């Protein structure tokens, strides 16, 4: 094995990369995290133009399919149901004259993360696959776009570029975690070997009983579920706790957010956004990353723009890790405050009684049984207590070393779990061993993203080391 020579480059490609390179169309938000004036969603692969064409209506009536390469078109992006997502510019760059060397389409949208995410979701539900980190670059590489003459130079470049990412990935699947995954893989291989041995040597090896099937598979499923639960935590640790500030208008949400951000801690992306949208910023408190989102105030307004803002706030609140319900302590509760309280019921939350520098007129009885913190966003009194409460509520605990944090790894585990569930269901429905074996192989294939591919030879070796067969 000479793989030690350029390990980073070699670790960069998995067998899925190579197989899917010729078939899959991938999509991703190409611009950075946070709010910016413009955000780009990029699509690359054999179906890129077709998929984009279905979701984009140009003002001029020109279809993307027929559009000239490298020419910007203005129009609307719709979701597959026909709902308008954004006004945007679209540009088709046909192969090989594109970044990846494949057909590429870019949508230049408004820079709000919410809009960009919605566009990406629409593309994925229309047949694209969410791109893995670095996947566009990998495609550019194999299509010779980075350097056609000096392939060696390219691999050096990739080496340097991916070393950090690779080290991260390697560290993640080392030690206890990789041990757990490998044990799981071995269990699957042993079981698959049993199934195949009974198929290839029916006179000598009895078929596993359905009890045998379900015991083995339920065990694996439990292990995967546990890993996935830990992975959720890992992703939160990496991406930051998704924290949303909700409250009626004028309770001081924005000041509170500024207070939290103004503290002398790392402020990652302080960018202003459009007024009607959710504003997101990141900060770090006691080593824990938080993504703070300010939202439009809850009101009973009949203004259509405001109603839309409120709708988004609700949706945003529903997907948050942590809600900060902000109330004005200097005023009595209003109907809108009760509405906010209902929102808090859905999620892990902290009640923040703002404006503690003013005389208190709020009735706090209604907040009994809740986590309540009094602060003044203006004087910053009580901010420490709030931060402490946030870190507690985040429940990240001591940072663990062996956490799955990459969406791709988590995706592979989920797919493994799904394949295992299919097998369990198949056993219950009385599916025959030939089909069950294929589902088991699929589970191993997905697990291969984390452990490396399982080859047929490994299964065959297992058969002959476990079963005395052949005559």
């Amino acid at each position: 094995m000479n793989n030690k020579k350029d390990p980073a480059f070699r670790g960069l490609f998995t067998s899925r990369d190579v197989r899917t390179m010729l078939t899959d169309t991938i999509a991703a938000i190409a611009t950075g995290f946070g709010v910016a004036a413009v955000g780009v969603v990029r699509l690359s692969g054999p179906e890129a133009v077709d998929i984009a064409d279905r979701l984009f209506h140009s003002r001029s009536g020109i279809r993307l399919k027929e559009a000239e390469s490298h020419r910007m078109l203005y129009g609307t992006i719709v979701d597959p149901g026909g709902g308008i997502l954004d006004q945007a510019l679209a540009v088709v760059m046909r192969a090989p004259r594109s970044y990846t060397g494949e057909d590429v389409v870019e949508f230049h949208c408004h820079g709000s993360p919410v809009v960009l995410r919605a566009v990406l979701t629409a593309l994925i539900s229309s047949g694209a696959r969410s791109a893995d980190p670095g996947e566009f670059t990998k495609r550019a590489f194999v299509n010779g776009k980075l350097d056609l003459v000096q392939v060696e130079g390219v691999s050096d470049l990739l080496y340097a570029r991916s070393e950090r990412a690779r080290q991260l990935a390697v560290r993640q699947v080392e030690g206890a975690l990789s041990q757990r995954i490998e044990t799981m893989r071995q269990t699957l291989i042993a079981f698959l070997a049993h199934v195949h041995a009974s198929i290839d040597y029916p006179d000598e090896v009895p078929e596993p009983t359905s009890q045998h099937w379900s015991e083995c598979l339920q065990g694996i499923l439990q292990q995967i579920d546990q890993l996935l639960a830990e992975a959720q935590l890992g992703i939160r640790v990496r991406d930051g706790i998704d924290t949303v500030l909700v409250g009626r208008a004028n309770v001081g949400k924005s000041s509170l957010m500024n207070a939290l951000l103004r503290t002398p801690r790392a402020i990652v992306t302080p960018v202003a956004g459009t007024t009607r949208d959710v504003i997101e910023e990141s900060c770090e408190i006691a080593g824990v990353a938080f993504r703070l989102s300010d939202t439009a105030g809850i009101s009973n307004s009949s203004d259509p723009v405001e109603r839309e803002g409120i709708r988004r706030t609700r949706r945003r609140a529903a997907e948050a890790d942590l809600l900060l319900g902000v109330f004005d302590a200097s005023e009595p509760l209003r109907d809108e405050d009760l509405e906010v309280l209902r929102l808090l019921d859905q999620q892990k939350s902290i009640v923040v009684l703002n404006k503690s520098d003013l005389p208190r007129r709020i009735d706090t009885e209604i907040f009994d049984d809740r986590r309540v913190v009094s602060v003044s966003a203006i004087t910053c009194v009580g901010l420490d207590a709030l931060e402490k409460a946030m870190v507690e509520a985040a429940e990240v605990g001591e940072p663990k070393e062996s956490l799955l944090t990459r969406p791709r790894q988590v995706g592979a585990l989920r797919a493994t779990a799904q394949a295992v569930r299919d097998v369990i269901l198949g056993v219950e429905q009385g599916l025959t061993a030939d089909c069950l074996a294929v589902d088991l192989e699929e589970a191993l294939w997905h697990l291969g993203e984390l452990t490396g591919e399982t080859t047929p030879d490994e299964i065959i070796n297992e058969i002959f080391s476990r079963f005395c067969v052949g005559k």
Partner: protein
Amino acid sequence: MDGGETGSMTFDEKCDVIVVGAGHAGCEAALAAARLGMEVLLFSISLENVAQMPCNPSVGGPGKGHLVREIDALGGEMARCIDATALQVRLLNTSKGPAVQSLRAQVDRNLYHLRMLQTLSNQPRLRLNEATVADLVIEGGRVRGVINQLGRRYGAEAVILCMGPYLASRVHVGHRSFPAGPRGQREASDLGQTLRRLGLRLMRFKTGTSPRVHARSLDTSRLTLLEGEYPGYGFSFETRRLDRPPLPCWVTHTTARTHAIIRKHLHDSAMYSGAIQGPGPRYCPSIEAKLVMFPDKDRHLVFIEPEGVHTHEMYLAGLSTSLPEDIQIEFVRTVPGLERAEITRFGYAIEYDCLDPLELERSLQLKKVKGLFAAGQINGTTGYEEAAAQGLMAGINAVRYIRGEEPVILDRSQAYIGVLIDDLVSKGTAEPYRMMTSRAEYRLLLREDTADRRLTPLGHSLGLISPERFAAFEKKQRQIEAEKARLEAVRVPANEQTAAFLQAMGSTPLTQTTNLKELLRRPELNYETLAVLDPEREVLEEETVRVVENDLRYAGYIERQQRQVAAQRRMEERRLPEDIVYSEIGGLSLEAREKLDRVRPQTLGQAARISGVSPADIAVLLVHLESRRRQGRGRVE
């Protein structure tokens, strides 16, 4: 090209194709070439040994049975010959699903030989010749003919090597060993020297066989009867059912005493005394190897199989051994039912030279010598079926080579034959290669019952399928499609009668009108039981019904595998140019460079299956292909 005799020469006789060796590979190769219009010369060391079965008198089983069906679907001979000479057949894995269901036959060894000899003798353009081929004639990197042991020269456009395990073979019994082929035949070592001179890599493999006993010395009251099916299924499309009454097999097992004797004398076994180096093949382990590898197992099964109707010899499958004769007698007699066993032939181990299959192209032509093909055990495989399958493909491709046509390459998703050859020429093998269902990743598409659908159109277009048979094939396919369409069209109302039927079958009642196709997908129902709801149905052949049922019931899985095949096909479509210089491609790992250079894969897909070639290496190859393509176009960008 160094090796063989060179220079312009005259020949004593000429033909189109020469086949060296008349085992299972050689017979199929010679028949295919002759049927495709070639003048064929088939050499055998002994014509009494054409199509011999020196090991188990049995053919088929999972993976192997699939191969036999495929050979038949392409127009080969093996299946017809088995059907004509089978002593018993059993359909295996009936509970494990249609993809792995497979037929296995006990075959009358002598009748099989005679039936094949007769077929060869009746074949126009095919001549049999008893001789030992001693050398190859090679000129300008191209095979021109062969020379026999007496110096007679035969010219041909293509030569197919099917020598089985006869190259420098050595038989071992206990501490004694002597040069010989299976069943006491002469070995052939001259040709091995020729192959070495040509710079071909040879490997030394070993295998073994079991003692045979006289049937009258068995105590059948202590054996478990293993009966065949009657009437049994046949392997060939042309066979309906076998109506001969089957002969029984028997099962027994080794005992603690057997194991004690074998352990005590392990150092006397050729495999363990040091006479033969390295481990034996895993696919047919000797009883010694089983005891060593699985010391905790207190018994091993022994299958007692009849060798034919004209002999009382019985084969003791599971007791392959190279222990000395007296130890064989001693341990065999500790097996229940074999206490008075009268051994007619002793077991032995045999080692032999074979080609490293990485020397082959996917057409089974040797990379280093044009027109020279190899098939069967010489390529590192074990098994009659594996040999026959290669023989057929080598025969077909030798003819296509002579005619200047593209070789026929079966895809992994098309046939077990494709898996077999792709595995051999892409991965090589470190021990005798046996087909197993787990090797075929698209096995749900490679059912026994669809071998004809997968391969008969190809066999027909090649010219190996008769017009009558092709007409029957097409009729069957039309019936299958028509029946599938009909089952979808027949509506089943959600009424009381339906509910009563479904309840009786242990199935859930309908909530709305459905059709028979949907009902057929329920595991608890099948085509036969659905007759109650389907009074209009016509009587169809059993084989036709089987395909309809399997197609519909497994539609979801079949579609899934077809999608995988489609994705893989993109990789197979990317051809790797023949002049590619792997050592000059930057970014490839050293191991990948060596492996790629040795295998010289023909497609990117094949390259990806080579062990030691990582996905990163494939990515590098993609880059290389793209840059070549652009340079070829004069770099437009």
